[in-house]
């Protein structure tokens, strides 16, 4: 090869290399998750992204001083989590889960069958509308209010126990949408029980649920838990605020 041809060849190769690098940079998607350390809703998004092997950046928000970006991306609720994908924002954790599922098709979180999908969505909504509020109230309230909330929480947990029905996970053999949606139970229950000395999920009434709560030992899940020692004081403080407000009315 002449010197000239060699030079052209090298130049051409460098050009192609540069083009393929530019292309892969374009294809590298921007995925950002706006979250707080303790938000169980943001945790769902962390898990979903990790289960699908998606690269993303976490942006920690201070809810007492919300960033301009958060207010811009979630003007209606001004809350976390918010997923930012290639400049477009998606809010509300369960909606984000469905978006992730539909955008990145590997390692599906929802079953294929429409009826099974409907069931998963139904129970996820039940978790948010009924289980979480009743457990939260059982944790922060006192006296008669607490008694009533505990009774309701037990009833709700019993329904979840029934839905597990001998399966390892709500999703069957693998962690799925409903496990992620209810996953906060596996951590917060322990926190609530520690602070309040209540026994919310005991092995006698809820053997399946207790066993399921160990899905949090899966490294992918465990790595995302907020530090226990930070959560305890945070929730003690929130309970304090609620009890002070109630006693002053």
């Amino acid at each position, binding site marked *: 090869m002449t010197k000239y041809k060699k030079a052209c060849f090298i130049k051409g190769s460098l050009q192609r290399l540069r083009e393929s690098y530019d292309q892969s940079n374009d294809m590298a998607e921007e995925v950002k998750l706006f979250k707080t350390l303790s938000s169980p809703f943001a945790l769902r998004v962390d898990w979903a992204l990790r289960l699908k092997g998606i690269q993303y950046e976490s942006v920690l928000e201070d809810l007492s001083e919300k960033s301009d970006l958060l207010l811009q991306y979630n003007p*209606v609720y001004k809350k976390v989590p918010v997923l930012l*994908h290639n400049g*477009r924002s*998606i*809010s*509300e954790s369960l*909606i*984000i889960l*469905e*978006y992730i599922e*539909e*955008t990145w098709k590997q390692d599906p979180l929802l079953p294929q069958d*429409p*009826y099974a*999908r*409907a069931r998963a*969505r*139904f129970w996820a*909504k*039940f978790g948010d509308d009924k289980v979480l509020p009743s457990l939260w109230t059982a944790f922060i309230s006192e006296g008669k209010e607490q008694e009533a909330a505990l009774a309701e929480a037990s009833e709700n947990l019993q*329904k979840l126990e029934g839905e597990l029905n001998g399966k390892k996970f709500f999703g069957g053999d693998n962690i799925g949408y409903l496990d992620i949606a209810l996953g906060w139970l596996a951590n917060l229950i322990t926190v609530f029980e520690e602070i309040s000395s209540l026994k919310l999920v005991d092995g006698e009434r809820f053997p399946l649920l207790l066993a399921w709560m160990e899905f949090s030992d899966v490294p992918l899940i465990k790595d995302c838990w907020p530090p226990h020692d930070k959560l305890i004081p945070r929730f003690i403080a929130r309970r304090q605020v609620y009890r002070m407000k109630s006693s002053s009315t």
Partner: protein
Amino acid sequence: MAKGGEVKLIGGWPSPFVMRPRIALNLKGLEYEFLEEKFGAKSELLLRSNPVHKKIPVLLHADRPVCESLVIVQYIDEAWPSSGPSILPSDPYDRATARFWAAYIDEKWFPSMSGIARAQGEEAKKAAIDQVVEGLSLLEDAFGKISKGKPFFGGDTIGFLDIALGCFLGWVRVTERTQGLKLLDQAKVPGLAKWAERFCADSAVKGVMPETEKLAEFAKLIMAKFRAPPPQ
């Protein structure tokens, strides 16, 4: 008969939530048996089919129950993918947007609507109305962005978000009449005002949207029950 088995819907004519799956089934051209619940008494079938919430609507497809109106609408879309138009948009971001506003309507906007009738005193009533008007303004903005000049949130045909919001139009009209308000004001929410007319005139909606008069009578009944002193 619908593909894969018989379709039944447990519901009641005044319920906007029941209207949602009815519109979806109509859009898909699916036949179904409407099992009307008697007001004030829940049937055995309902209690058996929805033991968790004991509420309507419940879709029974080959005797398998699906509960929660928006879960049902998505189920209808997924179980009969090749019948009629798609109810949810095809793009994931558009789907997320439709779901977001549907959730907003259920969690914030409709509760604020029912807040008007429940408000005690002039001040509370004004605050409730202001909330609804604010919500409508957000939805007007959303309509502009989502419809992109087309007749519906879903584009050329009624979609998920049209159904999620449109089912409340009967109740909006009743509220306007009983409270002497104009909520779907052409001047304030022109996009939504025109959309509402189109929605109510659509063949998938016409037969299941209750007449305002009938709904107003029903509203009086439940308000009377609501305000009635507790039994001795």
